């Protein structure tokens, strides 16, 4: 794959190096030549210095022949604008945008590209770990709007149904594992202590579940 990485800060340098190590052709762009010092010494992709909104700079980077573009500078505006150009002018199919400032999230959503919001995601993950380390997050969809959680059924809930335990909305059942065997349960399934339950839920749903688990 031919990939263009716009921005060579921590995220850009790491992403470029990973892609290079996987055998892809990588071109990294940055306005400052000194940013390329962030790259691992054995990185052998191309580096292009220049203003990234400049059409000549984009052409020099070979954007017309790119399979994928990742915009990962620490300016949300630059990331959104370059991604939009890649989409409407160069018809790149795979485009990923870094969301730096959480306040910018809705503008990114308006542009409609795939967005990675590492700041919001990190803060939310920490928030969950602070609330209750006993409900584990095992998978995160989108930017963590919906996540899959796993928890063990505590003693007081044995004999009652899954429907009684789970909050009525903001969550859906994924799997129940009993004695190493996973099944697809429904809300009428009777619980046993130590059952491992996987559910997908929003942050509010997970919060409601934690409150349920805490009260006998």
């Amino acid at each position, binding site marked *: 794959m031919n990939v263009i990485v716009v921005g060579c800060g921590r995220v850009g340098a790491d992403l470029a190096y990973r892609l290079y190590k996987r055998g892809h052709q990588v071109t990294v762009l940055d306005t400052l030549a000194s940013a390329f010092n962030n790259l691992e010494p054995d990185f052998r992709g191309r580096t292009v210095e220049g203003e990234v*909104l400049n059409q000549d700079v984009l052409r020099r980077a070979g954007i017309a022949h790119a399979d994928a573009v990742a915009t990962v500078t620490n300016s949300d*505006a630059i990331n*959104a*604008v370059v991604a*939009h150009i890649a989409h*409407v002018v160069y018809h790149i199919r795979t485009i990923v945008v870094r969301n730096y400032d959480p*306040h910018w999230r*809705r*503008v990114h959503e*308006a542009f409609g590209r795939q967005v990675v919001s590492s700041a919001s995601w990190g803060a939310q993950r920490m928030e969950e770990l602070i609330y209750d380390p006993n409900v584990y997050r095992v998978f995160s969809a989108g930017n963590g709007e919906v996540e899959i959680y796993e928890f063990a059924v505590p003693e007081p809930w044995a004999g009652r149904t899954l429907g009684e335990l789970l909050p009525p909305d903001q969550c859906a059942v994924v799997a129940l594992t009993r004695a190493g065997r996973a099944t697809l349960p429904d809300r009428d399934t009777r619980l046993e202590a130590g059952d491992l339950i996987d559910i997908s839920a929003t942050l509010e749903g997970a919060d409601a579940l934690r409150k349920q688990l805490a009260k006998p």
Partner: protein
Amino acid sequence: MFVIIAGGGRTGSQLTMLLLGQKHDVHLIEHRRDILSHLHRELPTEVIYEGQATDLRVLEEAGIKRAQVLAACTAEDADNLALCFVARTQYQVPRTIAQVNDPRNAWLFDEKFHVDVALNQSEVLASLIEEEMSLGDMMTLLKLRRGQFSLVEEKIPPGAKAIGVAIKDLALPEQCVIAGVIRKGKMLVPRGATTFEAGDEVLAVTDRQGAEQLAALFAGPRPVRPPVP
């Protein structure tokens, strides 16, 4: 009209004062502390909204949902582009205007980002200066179509090529029309048979290239300045 202006720098604040003076309803968004303190001294408090224009909550608070015009005048081209894009796609603002800070980014300021009008100050200024240098005595009275065409006026000096030639026989540039001739204080409606005399003031509508050719037709036999040694 209700106008939202993003960015209270020189252009934004000047525009705000101008529009307020014409009794328009204006809200100005700015986040830089030092600039805000300036603005508060010059503008009524209810006009100023503090915050980042690219934070949609701030835009909404400033009333973007009922804005008739968004003028994006921040110092960052990418912000101006994103603002025009969200104004149209999220809030259906009927008219968007954006300031171009770096002329090299001018190629982005069009329908790609829903920019209706791009204000490229450095380009406008540069072409004005260039025109002043190359067109000699020709005067631009009016700019049409964002400066693509102009209404120009030129006085025909004695000895000019065009004297005594009928308009229909004059090799006029393609994108150029003689709109009027003022002779001895009277306006003549030009016809194909009209001939020019020394001292005529000619009004023409023309594009940039046409203006140069016209200037050459109407130029007098100027003494050539010897090259500087």
